[in-house]
């Protein structure tokens, strides 16, 4: 085992051990196991027994008010950790795609016909959207609950969970998520950058994601409209629409590099 991996494991173990007492404290205070709640948030949006596919539309508005539209098709096979996103519009980007198999994520550029390793944290086509926004939920694999308050968002009573990342696999080391009390779905997520603002000594809010509506697919819930606001420049925002969800079984060939190459031709 590599030395670096060993260090990560030790840190992970330490954080898990140190996280448990905090969860116990919160459980005692609120009567809820929030680590378990986080798992439920993940599970309600993940498709462990079926495949999942959908169409997504991304409308990214820049600070000058100019809107860039991107459409894509997403395929997921969560039980095998497989994910494919293929851009279908605009024509100039058509065929560009992402393929995840396990820990590896490749981006395919049809103009150069090359695959390049990338990560879930990369944004898609100049928008605020990331591949991680469309892939399976993995909050409980990367964050532990550091603090909780209750709040009301619209008509819904919510838990506001302050999450601290214990891995470096996520874009934001700290998040606050608003989780409905009656259903473990996220209505809002405030995502914070690393470090603190030197003047306020507070974590810096970078992105706000508002999950405006959800669609029910069997027993699962999938957001159908998400608004992402760049907090550093609030003129920049991204509207994501997820449509045509399906849990039909997909061909194995879809989750291959060859498929990305073929579909882009």
């Amino acid at each position: 085992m590599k030395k670096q991996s060993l260090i990560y494991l030790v840190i992970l173990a330490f954080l898990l051990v140190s996280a448990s007492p905090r969860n116990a404290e919160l459980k005692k205070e609120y009567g809820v196991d929030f680590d378990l709640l986080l798992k439920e948030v993940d599970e309600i949006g993940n498709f462990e027994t079926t495949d999942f596919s959908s169409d997504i539309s991304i409308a990214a508005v820049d600070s000058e008010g100019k809107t860039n539209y991107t459409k894509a098709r997403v395929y997921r096979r969560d039980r095998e950790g497989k994910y494919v996103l293929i851009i279908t519009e605009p024509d100039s980007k058509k065929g560009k795609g992402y393929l995840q198999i396990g820990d590896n994520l490749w981006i395919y550029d049809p103009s150069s016909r090359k695959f390049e390793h990338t990560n879930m944290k990369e944004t898609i086509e100049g928008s605020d959207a990331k591949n991680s926004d469309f892939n399976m939920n993995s909050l409980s694999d990367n964050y532990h609950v550091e603090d909780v308050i209750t709040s009301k968002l619209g008509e819904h009573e919510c838990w506001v969970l302050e999450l601290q990342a214990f891995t470096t696999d996520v874009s934001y080391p700290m998040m606050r998520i608003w989780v409905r009390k009656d259903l473990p779905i996220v209505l809002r997520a405030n995502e914070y950058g690393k470090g603190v603002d030197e003047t306020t000594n507070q974590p810096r809010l970078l992105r706000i994601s508002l999950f405006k509506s959800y669609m029910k697919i069997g027993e699962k819930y999938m957001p159908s409209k998400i608004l992402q606001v760049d907090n550093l420049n609030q003129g920049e925002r991204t509207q994501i629409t997820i449509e045509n969800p399906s849990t039909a079984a997909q061909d194995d060939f879809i989750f291959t590099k060859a498929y990305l190459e073929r579909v882009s031709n």
Partner: protein
Amino acid sequence: MKLVLLALRNLQRQKKRTIFLIVAIAISSMLSAIMYSFSGGVLNNMTENASNIFAGHVYLYGKERLNDGRIIYNVDDGQKILELLENSGVPYNSYSVRTEIMQSTFYFESNSVWQSIIGFSPENEKSFLERVPFVAGGFDGLSIENGIIISSKSAEKLKIRLNDTLTAKVKDKNSQFSAVDFQVVGIMDNIDLFGVSTSYTNIEYLNKVIGLEPGAFQSLGIYFSSIEEVDSKADALFEALSKDLNFFPRPEKKEKADSIYALFLPRIDDDWSGIKYEFETINDRMKDIREAENVIKIVTTIVMIFIYLVICVGIANTFSIVMIERFKEIGTMRALGMQRGTVSMLFVLEALFMSIIGVVVGLASGALLMSLVYLIPFGTNGPLFLFLKNGHFTFVPDIFWIGLNTFLIVFFTFASILGTAIKASRLSPVEALSSVK
């Protein structure tokens, strides 16, 4: 010898006409010399200036393949690399170390701009500091820990002024986002190469932002005494360092010639793990521009050939008239025993002298003009700075191309009078003497 003197004397018989043709040849010769020398000078200056922007004549940077397949820039043990450089036995002038964030977004009020940020040590990069043209502020401002130098284009887009504080959204070495503040301590003229807009800050501050240890760096640049010795010393250095470091093949040894942008991209699907090092020279990075220079020279030559053809028409017509004017003279010389070949040679010598005088006058005028242009100061802060050496245009004569053009001028002049010379030699003395022309 008599024939030579006769040819020279004939050239003086119609002074205006001869001078006109010599001036035409001289101008074309001067233009070609200036154009070839100018492109050579500009390329050399661009290379030298780029070496300062890139911080070195030779660059070494490490790429680490992570467990998830991603590649990040990391030289691993910087001190070890510096020791290997010291013990390589290859003499060098100085070195510089840098850290870079290739993608970040700067925000100020409601404006944003995409940037790359380079962290460097001002004390290691004096020649770079001397060459950067400033609109406001300067490198002294980097005494402030989070000071940053941005381009005037970025400043304009952000609508930011000196001493304002901008916020940058950056990714650390694990690709996690953070927002950091930078105080603008300098606004420089645009020195962006290849369309990449770059800002400069203290390496130690950027290391902190990225999450690198103090004293760490991502790339090493090495300066030699001059551009001319880069290739030979780079070869020696590469050989010396290869004993201890695992290198990618050098760019010129790649099977496929990549574009300049491809040099900065990680190689895809190469079978390697851990840290591997890239080794490039300024000449590798300027390869595309050097190729463009050759294209410019070829196009220049084609244009010059068209100009020569126009001049040749003039010379051919003039010598036709000359032949008609000298009908009786040619007849007399032929009657006195001058051979046909000698008559042809006389015309050829006249054309040859005319073209040689024209070329010499043209090259001398070109040299004079280039010297005068060299004396004109264009300033070190202007938008032309990338093409200048200490604020001046310089000219590097390219002997091959200037020689080729000189040959072409002489050849075309010879070709243009060849028909007339042959025709003159074929005149029968009786016919010529009885001519009424």
